[in-house]
C-alpha cells in the first residue's frame, strides 16, 4: 500500500531523515519506534504532505505522492492523527468529526458522512454523549478518541497515528491501544509512530527502529520484542543490574 524509498528530509542544514526505506502492506499494523529526534514525526509529515521538501520516493497505492497537497493526500486515502491530537478546541465534538469528512462533503457524499458519523459514535460511545460539548473541554483520552474518530471520517485506506499515547494516563493508553488493535482487526491499515515501544510492538505486525534519522532495525514485532538493542534503548531493560563485566 505504502512504499517509501531512500527518503531524505532536512530542516536547513540538519538532516532529520537520512535515506529511509519503509513499507506498509494492506491490512498491516506497522510501528515505527525511536527516541526523541530520531526522525519519526518528520517521516510522517512527509507522508502526509505537511513537509514539502524532501528527496526520495513515496508511493501510495503505486501513485507517486510527491508534490501533492495534504488535502490531495487525504483524498488518496491517507489520514493522520497528529501528535498532541490537534483537535479544534473551540468547535463541538460533532463539528470536529464533520471536519474530518471535509473531502467527503466536497464529493457530495452527505449520506455517507451521516453513516460514518453513526459508525464513529458506535465505536466511541463517549463521543455521542459529548457530541455537543466543546472539544477543548474533553479529557485527554476523549480527545484522542475524537482525533482518531475525526481521521476515520475520511474513510482512510491508511491511518497514520503520531504518538497516540502522549500525555495520557497508563489506563487510558491501554484503552487507546485496544482501540487501535480493534481497528486493525477490522481491516484498517495502520502506521503507528510511538515512543511507548512495548505497547506499540505488542499490537504490531512489524516494526522499524529509527536512530538519528537512519533505519537501523526492522523485523516482525516478535523479533523486535526480543532484540536486546530494542530492549535496552526502548523497553527499559536495565542491563546495569546484571552486566557481569562483559562489554
Amino acid at each position, binding site marked *: 500500500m505504502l512504499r517509501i524509498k531512500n527518503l531524505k528530509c532536512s530542516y536547513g542544514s540538519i538532516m532529520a531523515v537520512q535515506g529511509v526505506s519503509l*513499507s506498509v502492506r494492506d491490512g498491516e499494523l506497522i510501528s515505527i519506534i525511536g527516541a526523541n529526534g530520531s526522525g519519526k514525526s518528520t517521516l510522517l509529515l512527509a507522508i502526509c504532505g505537511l513537509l514539502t521538501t524532501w528527496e526520495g520516493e513515496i508511493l501510495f497505492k503505486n501513485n507517486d505522492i510527491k508534490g501533492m497537497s495534504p488535502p490531495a493526500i487525504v483524498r488518496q486515502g491517507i489520514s493522520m492523527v497528529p501528535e498532541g491530537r490537534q483537535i479544534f478546541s473551540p468547535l463541538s465534538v460533532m463539528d470536529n468529526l464533520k471536519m474530518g469528512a471535509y473531502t467527503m462533503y466536497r464529493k457530495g457524499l452527505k449520506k455517507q458522512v451521516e453513516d460514518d458519523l453513526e459508525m464513529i459514535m458506535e465505536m466511541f460511545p463517549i463521543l455521542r454523549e459529548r457530541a455537543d460539548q466543546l472539544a477543548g473541554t474533553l479529557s485527554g483520552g476523549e480527545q484522542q478518541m475524537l482525533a482518531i474518530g475525526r481521521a476515520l471520517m475520511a474513510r482512510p485506506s491508511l491511518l497514520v497515528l503520531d504518538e497516540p499515547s502522549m500525555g495520557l494516563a497508563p489506563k487510558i493508553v491501554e484503552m487507546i491501544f485496544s482501540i487501535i488493535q480493534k481497528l486493525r482487526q477490522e481491516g484498517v491499515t495502520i502506521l503507528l509512530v510511538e515512543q511507548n515501544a512495548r505497547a506499540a510492538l505488542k499490537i504490531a505486525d512489524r516494526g522499524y527502529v529509527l536512530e538519528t534519522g*537512519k*533505519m*537501523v532495525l*526492522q523485523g516482525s514485532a516478535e523479533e523486535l520484542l526480543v532484540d*536486546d538493542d530494542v530492549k535496552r534503548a526502548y523497553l527499559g531493560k536495565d*542491563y546495569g543490574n546484571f552486566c557481569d563485566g562483559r562489554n
Partner: protein
Amino acid sequence: MQQMKNLTVEEKNQLKLERLQSTLNRAYKNVPFHRNRFLEKSMLPENIVSLSDIEELPFMDRSHLGLHYPYGLFAVPLRDIVRIHTAPGTGTNPSISGYTKTDLMIWQRLVARSLEAAGVTSMDILQINLPPGLANWGRDYKDGAENMGASVIPNSPLSLAKTLMVLRDYKTTTLVTTLAFAEQLMEHMFENERNPNEFNLKRIVLVGEPVGAEQIKNLEEHLHVDVWLNYGLSEIPGPAIAFECLHHCGMHINDDHILPEIIDPVTRISVTPGQTGELVLTTLSARAFPLIRFRTGDMARFSTNPCECGSSLMTMEWLPERADTMMIISGIKISREQVTIYLKDALGVNDPKCKLEKIRHGGTEMLSISLVIDDSLFSDEIKNLEKLMVSTSERLAELIGVTVKITLTEKKI
C-alpha cells in the same frame, strides 16, 4: 516460504532493500572494519539506494574473519550474544560467528522452512548425524526441527551399528547427514544384510557439499528414500541458506534474509543469470554478525526458469567446482593453506612439500597428507618420527574437524 509467496516482486525487492539498508547502517555504526571499508571508498550507507548498488562495496573473504579473530566483526555488545560458533578458518585463527536471540529465532525459522520444503512435518522423526566439524549445523537443524514440532534425535557420536539401530528402532523418517555418511550407512546396511524395508526412513537431507545426480540416484534406489540437498556455510549464518523444494528444480535461496550475487571469480564482476560464477552472500537480517559481500568460494549459477512450486525465492544450481583452493571432506571445507601453515609450524619445516587428498578409509572420509621427508625432518629414530606424525595428525584433526592421516614419502610431489 508462505509469507514470501504472498509478496509481489516489488514488495519483495522493497523488503530486501529495507533489510540491506538497516544492515549497512548497523555495520557502519558498530563495526570499525565495515566503517573503514565504506570510508576507503568515500561512501556512506545512505549511498546504497538500490539492491544493485551493493556492487559498489568491497568484498569480504575468509581471511578477514581470521584477521578479526575472535570478536572484531561483531555488531552487537558481547552481552547480547547468546551463541558462539567456531569454524576452522583459513589461517592460524579460526573464524568465530555470534548470534543474538533474534538471530537464532530467525535462523530456526529458516531451517524449518528448508525442512518443510523437503516435506518434513510435525509428524516426522528427524535424526541428525553430522561429523564433529559440522556440529554447529547439528544444533541448528535440531532447533529448526523442534521449532516446527518434529521429534528430533540430536547429533551424537554413535558407532555405525548403533546409528543404524536408532534409525530402525526409533522409526526415524528423516536423516540429516553428509553424503559420505549416507553412503557409508548404505554400504554397512547391505554388508550386514539389512533390508531398507525394515526402516521407516523416507528422506535424507544432505548437507556440506554439492552432490551429483548419480550419487543421489544411487542413494534413492538403494535406500528407497527421497534425497534433498541443503546449502550452507559454517561461517554465516548456518546450514539452510539454500534448499531444494518438492520439484528439485535447483536450490531456493533464502534471499529474503541473505542477498546472493554470482560473480566472475577473476574479474569480480557480476555475471548474467544462467552463467556460472562464484557465490557471494550478504546477510540481510543478521544482528550479531553481518557479512557484506562475502566470497564463499562455492561455484553456482542462478536458474533462469521459475520453479513450479511458485516460490518467489531465487533458485541456484550448486556446482562441484570451486573458486578457491579449499577441499571439502565429509562436508567440511578444508583450507590447503591452513594445513600447510600448520605443518610448517608443527614440524619446524620452512617449506613443507606435501600432497593433500581426500581418501576413504573404512567408509570414513579423511584427509591424507603425503609429506616429503627432508633433512630437517629426518631422524635416526623411526619411533620419534612416527610419534611426531601421530601427534601432528591428531592436533591438525582437532583444528580442521576431520580425521588426518600423514604418511612420509621420499618421492618428490
